[in-house]
């Protein structure tokens, strides 16, 4: 028993080292004086200041923030409706189709989604004149489509784990379906909506492949700028950018964990 526990500990610590060492080294070398990312030349923050002067990067950041927040919000609305339809509205014609369409974008290779949506946009432009050319709008539509899948799954699992007695009580007390949804169901699934939105935001903010297909000229998103630079090799200002992004995410996750542990402690009391 003991040896198995030791084996597990060693294997798991190796696993965690594998997960974190590259990120730690990335962060360390973002403070490197030398332009060679891999040779230590003394402490410096010059790569961070050079980020501030990079106008293309700033424009791309703004684009990415717009695309990610709009498509995360749209995906949350659509994903919630899809989850409600699949869990709360009984059986209907096309239910299998809907649940299939909702989950397949999660595993569908990005290149296929990107190519197919671009070809759709071009065909639609030829037929009805909309969308006229590629723009941030086309990126938003594409991102909403694949982010919606994740929101649906998150909300669906929350809905199916939910205690139904509250809703039955509301119905017994005369709530109409509409007020039932807005007064009872919605407040109960808000945590799932928040985590679904955050997940959708990160996925959209992170996407390179789909955006590359459907973006118009001059609508580069942040990953597209990073990729075009990184493709030529490692560069210290990307390390600095990565460090900033990773710190923001780490901070967010820490706050979330702190919140969860606080509320679970409160429940015990």
């Amino acid at each position, binding site marked *: 028993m003991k040896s198995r526990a030791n084996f597990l500990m060693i294997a798991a610590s190796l696993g*965690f080292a594998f*997960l974190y060492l590259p990120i730690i080294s*990335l962060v360390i070398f973002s403070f490197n004086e030398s332009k060679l990312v891999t040779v230590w030349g003394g402490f410096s923050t010059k790569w961070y200041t050079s980020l501030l002067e990079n106008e293309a990067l700033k424009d791309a950041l703004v684009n990415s923030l717009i695309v990610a927040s709009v498509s995360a919000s749209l995906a949350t609305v*659509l994903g919630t409706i899809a989850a409600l339809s699949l869990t709360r509205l009984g059986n209907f014609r096309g239910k299998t189709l809907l649940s299939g369409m909702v989950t397949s974008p999660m595993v569908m*290779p*990005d290149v296929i989604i990107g190519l197919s949506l671009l070809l759709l946009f071009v065909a639609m432009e030829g037929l009805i004149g909309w969308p006229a050319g590629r723009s941030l709008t086309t990126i938003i539509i594409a991102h909403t489509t694949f982010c919606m899948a994740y929101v649906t799954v998150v909300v669906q699992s929350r809905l199916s784990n939910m205690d139904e007695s509250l809703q039955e009580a509301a119905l017994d007390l005369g709530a109409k*379906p509409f007020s039932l949804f807005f007064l009872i169901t919605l407040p109960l699934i808000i945590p799932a909506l928040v985590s679904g939105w955050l997940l959708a935001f990160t996925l959209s903010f992170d996407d390179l492949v789909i955006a590359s297909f459907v973006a118009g000229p001059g609508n580069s998103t942040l990953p597209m700028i990073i990729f075009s630079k990184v493709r030529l090799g490692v560069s210290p200002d990307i390390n600095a950018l990565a460090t900033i992004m990773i710190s923001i995410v780490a901070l967010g996750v820490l706050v979330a964990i702190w919140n969860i542990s606080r509320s679970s402690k409160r429940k015990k009391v």
Partner: protein
Amino acid sequence: MGNTRVFVVGIRRLRGAKLMNTLTRPVRPSALERWWQSTVHFLRQGRHFVIAIPMTWLVLFFLIPFAVVFKISLSEKALSIPPVSSLWGWNSEDAMVTLSLYLGNYKFLWEDNLYLDAYLSSIKIAAISTVITLLVAYPIAYLIARSKKYRYVLLALVILPFWTSFLLRVYAWMGFLNKNGVINNILLSLGIIDEPLNMIGTNFAVYIGVVYTYLPFMILPLYTILEKLDESLLEASADLGAKPYETFLHVVLPLSIPGIIAGSLLVFIPVVGEFVIPTLLGGSDTLMIGRVLWDEFFTNRDWPMASAVAIVMLVFLVIPMMVLRRVQDVRQERNT
């Protein structure tokens, strides 16, 4: 699921209420009856409208695009905007609408070894890296599921990298595996190697990149299954004299097979079409179909060929996708 149950309860209660009505004649309809009436009304009015919203979106932006890809794959590359030939034509001599389907793209796919090799090598790389990911993920998932005190901390540690940029995580390995990167520097200074190893630009680097970025997709389904594993089964097995590895092989492993299948498919399917990892970590000889599609589209601007490549890739992936859906459905049924 839950809804149908509510309905059954509702109908039964209603019948009871009607019976009560005839017996005791209450003055106004009960809350339940009013609810029932308004629900029937709402469902007639609103239900299909509600369902239609996500349905329309997905049909328009997920299903129809595949039809468009299929259509474009049957046309020829042309020097126009968009750079494809039109399938429909007008024959003015006979006053006929003509439909010309061009199968040359598929023929070329079959005849040129590049494409077939790329498909096979993508499937091979995806399969090997799925197995490695499984071997790395299993002990981690098992440890998390068995630990009591630190379960959520460990789980958060696994998920945390998943929230950071995929691109930047791949990039982190570029600095790590470089010729004058961290690993080579450590090995050189320890005197294990005399010359820096060539790691970046090899399939080895691609495997590492895939395992690294897709690890959470494997850990989470495994953890979900292993967490529900009844500990008394392990104790029973031990009491009956099984050694730990026998318990693992005959009890834990068979029970976790649904998690293994789900996790493996969640890794395998997207990796077959992976573009970023082979481009940044692989070499010029790392042949993967996602990269081929990208080059056909962006470099050669051959939209019909890129579409044909995508359609054949879809055909390869349909069966694994259906298996995945089946596994997930079974899991969901068990949960409810």
